[in-house]
């Protein structure tokens, strides 16, 4: 078993010399650095926080910590949901948030170069101003792009455009030894050895520290329209999804939402957006669908035909969000689910399973059924178009120990069912340390051995983000 050293006064001085003015120690460290957005997996204060501003500074920090055998936890904006950026073995937290420059666009090759600490929201807005779209669209807009790449974040538009992985062309990485490497290139195809680039994507800061990214952008679609589809029950709502997907209209986003969570989100935002009744019938489920295109008439035809499909499949009605304000309101309600749950819940855990699209209905039915066996509430919503479901366990009155015991039992059954249906335990949030044991159960000892072996090759002293994904002390 690996034994780590404590951060010594000599190391602190050396870090201060390498990253002047941006090293915080013990009492000076902001409490925010002790957790991510899922504190149920435990808080841990690092001994030192270093806020780097360049690849060279990151390299210097890694080299020093590797020599001193001190663990390093890379951290973006801390918006993760599995404890991936929490320094559970102490040592140094290496924050990338001050590496927040958009370095430039190459409009001929349709790529943008950014530092890893640029926030998704900042890139999305900047690209939009120039007529481009960076398609990955995770709900958390204030995550860093480095964090997005580290978890292969997905988001709403994954249905049509794929996940973050599909938009990473190249990156600069600092290895745990302090060596700087460049992976990938601004090319659209490659057959040049093992794809270390793809190995880095989704590795959750366990193989190297991403400091710079070259990301693919596309011309922004000229027209975007969202539909809010109203249903009397969730079964009809989810049963529509494969029919819509088969239609060939390629929705950009396709989300399902139940009544309770929509009301919770509306109360949180202080704004009622979605209707609660349709001609006397109570609405219990909604689909939020977005289509895009370059031609207004063509898109109008698409939404007409898509509406026919959903109405035939049992929808009560279809509302059209076609103005900036209506679109903003509809998506604000959807994007605030997690914040609304967090604001109303004392004890919270979540899972992020992904199942084949045709299994969503049976999986959701299963979850609703087993939820009855527990004292916590289960709230679920998700990306209906790609089978990725976010399931939240919420309690305001249980003792934490009992909550954790019951959640562990729930998760075990939920993940087993997802695996049985041909799914995976995480669609986009990652493993961190919160889901490590579940990953081991799902993929088995051989796969875990391979992953740990890969980690050893990148990180001989096992100092980078220990305890995460595959390597448990």
């Amino acid at each position, binding site marked *: 078993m690996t034994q780590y050293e404590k951060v010594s006064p000599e190391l602190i001085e050396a870090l201060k010399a390498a990253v002047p003015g941006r090293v915080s120690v013990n009492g000076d460290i902001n409490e925010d650095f002790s957790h991510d957005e899922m504190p149920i997996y435990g808080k841990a204060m690092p001994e030192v926080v270093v806020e780097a501003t360049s690849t060279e500074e990151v390299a210097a920090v890694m080299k020093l910590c590797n020599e001193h055998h001190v663990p390093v936890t890379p951290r973006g904006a801390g918006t993760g949901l599995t404890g991936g950026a929490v320094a559970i073995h102490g040592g140094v937290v290496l924050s990338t948030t001050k590496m927040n420059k958009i370095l430039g666009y190459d409009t001929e090759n349709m790529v943008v170069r950014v530092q890893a600490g640029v926030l998704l929201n900042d890139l999305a807005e900047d690209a939009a*101003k120039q*007529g481009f779209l960076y398609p990955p669209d995770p709900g958390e807009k204030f995550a860093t792009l480095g964090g997005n790449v580290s978890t292969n974040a997905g988001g709403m538009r994954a249905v049509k455009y794929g996940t973050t992985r599909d938009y990473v062309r190249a990156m600069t990485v600092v290895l745990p030894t302090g060596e700087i490497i460049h992976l990938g290139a601004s090319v659209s195809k490659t057959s040049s050895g093992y794809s270390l680039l793809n190995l880095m994507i989704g590795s959750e800061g366990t193989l190297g520290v991403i400091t710079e990214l070259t990301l693919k952008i596309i011309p922004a679609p000229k027209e975007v329209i969202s*539909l*809010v589809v109203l249903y009397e029950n969730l079964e009809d709502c989810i049963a529509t999804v494969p029919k819509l997907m088969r239609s060939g209209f390629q929705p950009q986003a396709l989300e399902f939402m139940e009544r309770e969570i929509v009301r919770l989100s509306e109360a949180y935002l202080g*704004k*009622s*957006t979605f209707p609660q009744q349709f001609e006397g019938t109570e609405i219990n489920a909604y689909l939020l669908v977005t289509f895009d295109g370059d031609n207004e008439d063509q898109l*109008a035809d698409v*939404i*007409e035909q898509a*509406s026919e499909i959903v*109405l035939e499949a049992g929808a009560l*009605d*279809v*509302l*059209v*969000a*076609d*103005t*900036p*304000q*209506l679109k*903003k*309101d*509809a998506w604000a309600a959807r994007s605030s689910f997690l914040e609304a749950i967090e604001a109303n819940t004392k004890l919270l855990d979540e899972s992020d399973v992904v199942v084949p699209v045709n299994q969503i209905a049976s999986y959701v039915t299963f979850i609703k059924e087993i939820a009855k066996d527990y004292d916590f509430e289960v709230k679920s919503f998700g990306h209906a178009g790609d089978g990725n479901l976010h399931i939240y366990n919420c309690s305001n009155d249980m003792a934490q120990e009992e909550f954790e015991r019951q959640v562990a039992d729930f998760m075990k059954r939920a993940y087993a069912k997802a695996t049985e249906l041909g799914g995976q335990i995480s669609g986009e949030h990652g493993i961190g340390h919160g889901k490590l044991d579940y990953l081991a159960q799902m993929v088995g000892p051989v796969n875990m051995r391979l992953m740990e072996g890969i980690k050893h090759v990148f990180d001989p002293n096992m100092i980078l983000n220990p305890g995460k994904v595959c390597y448990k002390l």
Partner: protein
Amino acid sequence: MEILVCLKQVPDDSVEIHLKPGTEEVNLDGVDSVVNAFDTYALEMAARLKEAVGGSITAITIGPEKARDAVKTCLAVGANQGYLISDPAFEAADTLGKSRILAAAVRHLEAEAGKPFDLIFCGREATDRATGQVGPQLAEALGVGLITDLVDIEQTGAGICAKQETESGYRRVEAATPCVVTVNKPAYDPRYPTIKSKLAARKMPIPVLSAAELDNVDPGRPGSHVVRVYEPAKRQAGVKIKEETCEESVLKAVAMMADAKVL
């Protein structure tokens, strides 16, 4: 009840807009056009009134051909018919000129339908120039009453009863019809169009009223002229106080004010 809703197409007000550097020209490159938010509130209020008491809503706008989209948008959320008032002779008109053109359109549409409008709705102001002048000027041009800043309305035996927002609260105002009302943000939001209403609106004709249809109305001499166009000075961002509890936030605010010697 016969209702007319006057609307204006404006640049998307969720986008920060600037002048072209070194000019007094507003840079609207890449900015979508939308229906003025206050006009969408006016239409929603009118649609709710129509649903309560029956009747018909006509939507009109003055603008270039692309303003037809604004009328089409309204046909999907409550308006029964719509007209685009468009003529090169109207392009330079200021708010006073526009209110004269609108008054001529009102007379034309009333003559064509053979019945008068009972109520004419306008937004309290447009989000682009925010003069708030067209509603009052239109009431004057038509010689009818005016109630501004409505946040609710209902029909009474003799006319309407309106809830008017004032600087210090609300006032209930009764008025005989016909009259002009201007609308502020009510407690509710404009509805979403349904796919059926959207498709129906797409197929509805939107006739153009040019100067010829409006008895060659003369927008007349401008009532105003623009002296200078400039960007307002940027205000410094305020201090956000966000402690764990409300009490802690208040204590911190008080301490900060005490430190600044304003208490």
